């Protein structure tokens, strides 16, 4: 790089390849010349070898900033025609713009409005789908929208029976764990003689809480996501529109059977989870803690009330409804392409698990108030 000053004109003789990783010497030389007093700066590019887009962008930027003061001297024809294919420097918009940092108060307000908007949007979608679900299962059948029980049954198979192994595995492990945990606590209060009460602790916590909630979380991850992905993909491939154009409401045709399937499958799965979970606690109690088999059995029977199991099942049905509605609402909101399917699927799983836990809290508080 050579810089020559001739009167009010500075000539920068550039040499070498104008490539993205070799721009620094060019920049130094040109910027040094531009900082000087010269009225005209000629960048002699006749000995520039290869160049790439970053090199051309570099030239464009300097020409724009030069505002007519900087020009290129003796450009070879390849470089010249390459540049001419681009918008001229005055139209070039490659300037660094200062990023305005919003004030903290603005940031908080913006974030809060955003959260409120997103939550209210979710609630609106969810609510409208819920109303449609209620319509198509109660009034709809009398107005020509039949409930597709065959599809609902096949959904029960997919969401219910296929999920049995994983639900059973997790529940039996949970039963074993609870057996140990309760023994550890009971020992502090009165030694091994109290181990018999681990039957109470396992039985009640499995039927009231762990069974329904664990099953719901597994199903949200397994079936809720599947519902969103399937309906979302159908939105992308215009299958939902095709159904509408054929006069078939997608909610009645697709969503209602899926939700009904979950609504039926979840309580059934919870019954299995309860039984297997109690069996897990039984194994810990009898085999590890040494409680006699018949006593453990009697204690379990005494501890469990039918209402415990029943409230667990009611919760499970509500969880199934929530998972199905969230999954379907998110799937139907998919716009654009496959990327949105992924985003909405993630959202569906996260939101439905959160909803399940919120609903569980509500139930627990209701039952607590009811009991006291």
């Amino acid at each position, binding site marked *: 790089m050579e810089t020559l000053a001739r009167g009010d004109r500075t000539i920068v003789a550039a040499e070498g390849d104008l490539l993205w990783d070799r721009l620094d010497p060019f920049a130094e030389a040109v910027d040094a010349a531009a900082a000087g007093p010269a009225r005209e700066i*000629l960048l002699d590019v006749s000995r520039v070898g290869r160049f790439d887009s970053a090199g051309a962008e570099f030239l464009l930027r300097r020409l724009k900033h030069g505002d*007519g003061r900087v020009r*290129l001297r003796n450009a070879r024809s390849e470089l010249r025609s390459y540049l001419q294919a*681009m918008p001229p420097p005055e139209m070039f918009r490659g300037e660094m713009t200062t990023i305005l940092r919003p004030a903290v108060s603005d940031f908080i307000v913006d974030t809060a409005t955003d959260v409120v908007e997103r939550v209210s949007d979710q609630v609106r979608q969810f609510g409208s789908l819920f109303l449609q679900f209620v319509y198509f299962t109660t009034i709809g059948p009398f107005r020509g929208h039949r409930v597709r029980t065959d599809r609902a049954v096949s959904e029960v198979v997919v969401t219910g029976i296929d999920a049995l192994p994983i639900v059973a595995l997790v529940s039996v492990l949970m039963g074993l764990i609870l057996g140990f945990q309760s023994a550890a606590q009971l020992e502090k209060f009165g030694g091994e003689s109290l181990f018999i009460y681990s039957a109470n602790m396992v039985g009640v916590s499995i039927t009231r809480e762990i069974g329904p909630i664990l099953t719901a979380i597994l199903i949200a991850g397994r079936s809720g996501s599947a519902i969103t992905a399937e309906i979302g993909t159908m939105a992308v491939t215009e*299958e939902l529109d095709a159904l509408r154009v*054929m006069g078939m*409401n997608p909610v009645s045709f697709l969503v209602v059977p899926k939700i009904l399937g979950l609504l039926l499958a979840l309580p059934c799965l919870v019954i299995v989870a309860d039984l297997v979970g109690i069996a897990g606690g039984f194994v810990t109690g009898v085999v590890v803690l040494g409680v006699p088999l018949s006593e453990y059995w009697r204690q379990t029977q005494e501890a469990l009330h039918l209402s415990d199991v029943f409230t667990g099942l009611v919760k499970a049905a509500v969880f199934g409804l929530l998972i199905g509605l969230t999954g379907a609402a998110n799937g139907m909101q998919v716009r654009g392409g496959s990327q949105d399917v992924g985003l909405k699927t993630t959202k569906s799983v996260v939101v439905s698990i959160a909803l399940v836990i919120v609903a569980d809290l509500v139930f627990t508080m209701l039952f607590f108030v009811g009991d006291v």
Partner: protein
Amino acid sequence: MSDAAEHPIEVDDVRMQFGAREVLRGISFRVRAGETYVLMGPSGCGKTTLLRCLVGLLRPTGGHVRILGEDLVAMDEDELDRFRPRIGMLFQFGALLNSMSVGDNVGLPLRERTDLDESTIHAIVKMKLSMVGLEGTHRNMPSELSGGMKKRAGLARAMALDPAVYFFDEPTSGLDPVTASEFDELVLTLKRYVGMTAVVVTHDLDSAFRIADRIGVLYNGKLVAEGTPDEIKAVDDPRIRSFVAREPRSRADHAAVWQKFFVDDGG
């Protein structure tokens, strides 16, 4: 002949606004019975939005869409659902339900909307599939079909309930030239034998000129020209000329502006 029978499709000053953006700015045209009316125009001109308004997937913010004399804009969802068997639509990629076999896809409208027995449905499905040249594919799943076959199957499904009017969304896009012209032949055959009334949205000029009785050119949400293929070819409007002659919309020549940044002194 009553007006609805003469013009099964009547579009009257249809407007569509998304937020502040006006996508359709007052579109009116009428399609005669048995006619193939092609809507064409460059990408983003609003033709897909217009088609969605015509089949009731979108409710226009203004104007009327009268199909067979009934105004879709004034219908509620239940009325639309009941009306829809009278129109058939072919989607861009067929939009077959992936979870069902080709035969079940074609039979779906029959099973949902009629009380026909299974053997009749089966016979109709086979008949419709053979009309579109897809004999023996009813057991295949949609994923086993090529793009062109999916469109044919989609057409067979649209034909299942013998609708009075048809709508096609980009029927030849994404097809190789041979398959595309085969599809055009199919459309012409159906027109000849079934007397199909159709609105076809396309940006495929060859196809448009082959199948159209009349063409409407959309530009920026307005219908800027309407006429037979020959009339459209002869129009002098630069917006239409550029589209029909496939000239790029604008390619400003920057070379001249660049000239002042070069200095040549041989030194």
